[in-house]
């Protein structure tokens, strides 16, 4: 197909109507940091492109006290510069801060990071660890799906990925994130981990949600790590045990992949860093 129709979308309703009309002939473009390259290399060839960067509603970060909702068009720069993400949500800040370069962060969006579906998408593991829900809208109505399940039932041809929301962490919860890239800037993640930890007054982990990036076909929840950590204190032996649990899961998932031996070794310090910073930062952020 040749691209011969473009729209500067003015509202969500208008975009949903266009998607209903054109279906799989159309593609949404926001920050463009992935799709413009795919268009140029003819990896995709839509007939219709719909720009959504001028729709204010998609660029909002909303905090209603219980939930934080990020419009799909919120850029990484917006997240990095917003104080909400500097306390116990620091893991999301850290992930967004490490995306690409200033130019990429100015344009790249949360919605795009999800919809593009890369296994190495930096913002996704922290959002999975937060238990985020993705909101998709079409002429049939709104469909909501947990982010951890999203990759197995992705945005459909007539749907617009509208927003993502998560419950604000409690004062005694903290989100952390670590990334292994090959250099500081402009580095695609080799692997990432994100962990949301909740401690009781005796420093025992009473709630945990863990996620990884680039350790499988998609970013994913790491249940084995969670099961291991629950009810323990963060000590050297605990970290070693959590690493073991993750390595066993990886061995199964990445069996036969040439990157497995490398990732198996590299995950040791990345998960250690995430858990240790989780342990240290709990004193800085709130109730202790």
């Amino acid at each position, binding site marked *: 197909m040749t*691209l*011969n*129709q*473009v729209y*500067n979308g003015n509202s969500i309703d208008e975009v949903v109507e266009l998607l209903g009309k054109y279906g799989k002939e159309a593609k949404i*473009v926001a*920050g*463009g*940091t992935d799709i*413009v*390259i795919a*268009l*140029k290399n003819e990896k995709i060839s839509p007939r219709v*492109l719909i*720009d959504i*960067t*001028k729709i204010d509603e998609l660029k909002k970060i909303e905090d209603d006290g219980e939930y934080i909702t990020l419009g799909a068009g919120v850029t990484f*720069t917006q997240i990095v510069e917003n104080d909400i993400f500097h306390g116990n949500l620091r893991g999301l800040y850290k992930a967004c801060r490490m995306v*690409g*370069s*200033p*130019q*990429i962060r*100015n*344009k790249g969006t949360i919605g795009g990071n999800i919809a593009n579906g890369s296994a190495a998408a930096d913002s996704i593991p922290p959002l999975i660890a937060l238990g985020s829900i993705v909101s998709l809208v079409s002429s049939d109505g709104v469909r909501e799906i947990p982010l951890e399940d999203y990759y197995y039932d992705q945005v459909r041809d007539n749907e617009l990925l509208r927003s993502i929301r998560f419950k604000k962490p409690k004062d005694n919860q903290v989100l952390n994130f670590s990334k292994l890239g090959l250099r*500081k*800037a*402009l580095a695609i993640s080799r692997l990432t981990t994100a962990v949301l930890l909740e401690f009781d007054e005796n420093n025992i982990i009473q709630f945990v949600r863990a996620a990884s990036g680039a350790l499988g076909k998609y970013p994913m929840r790491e249940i084995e790590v969670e099961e291991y950590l629950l009810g323990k204190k963060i000590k050297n032996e605990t970290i070693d045990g959590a690493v073991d649990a993750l390595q066993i899961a990886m061995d199964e998932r990445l069996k036969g992949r040439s990157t497995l031996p490398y990732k198996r070794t590299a995950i040791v310090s990345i998960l250690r860093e995430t858990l240790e910073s989780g342990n240290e930062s709990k004193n800085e952020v709130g109730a202790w």
Partner: protein
Amino acid sequence: MVNIGLTVNQKLFEISVDENLRLIDLLRDKLGFHGTKEGCGEGECGACTVIMDGETVNSCLVMAFQANGSNITTIEGMEKDGKLHPIQQAYIDAGAVQCGFCIPGMVLSTKALLDKNSHPNRDEIREGISGNLCRCTGYNKMLDATEMAIKYMEEEKE
């Protein structure tokens, strides 16, 4: 073809463009701003950096039609009344320019940095230009140039 209007270096352009045209092609091939360079064409090198509505972007990753209604500054828009911008002058004086290919993007990233933070430290300067690759200088001269530019701009104010 699609009709768009945008401001480049404070001048309004109304133009009809191909649907699949990128912003960098519009700037270079249609509007003649050849200072904007295409290096990698995939957002890694920053040579095509321009300032769009106050923020740096890689113009190779923006579709021309997306720039409808936006305000863009390219390297050609930096000088005023025939005089180089203090950042450009500082780059020359510090010896931060070798082959020159990365410089338009580098200067615009420096400008965007100083517009947000008028007194960055060296780490912040490094971060500010981290999306612009240079294969000649090793970057230290750009850090020197940015510190020099801060001084020039202060002197200009006085």
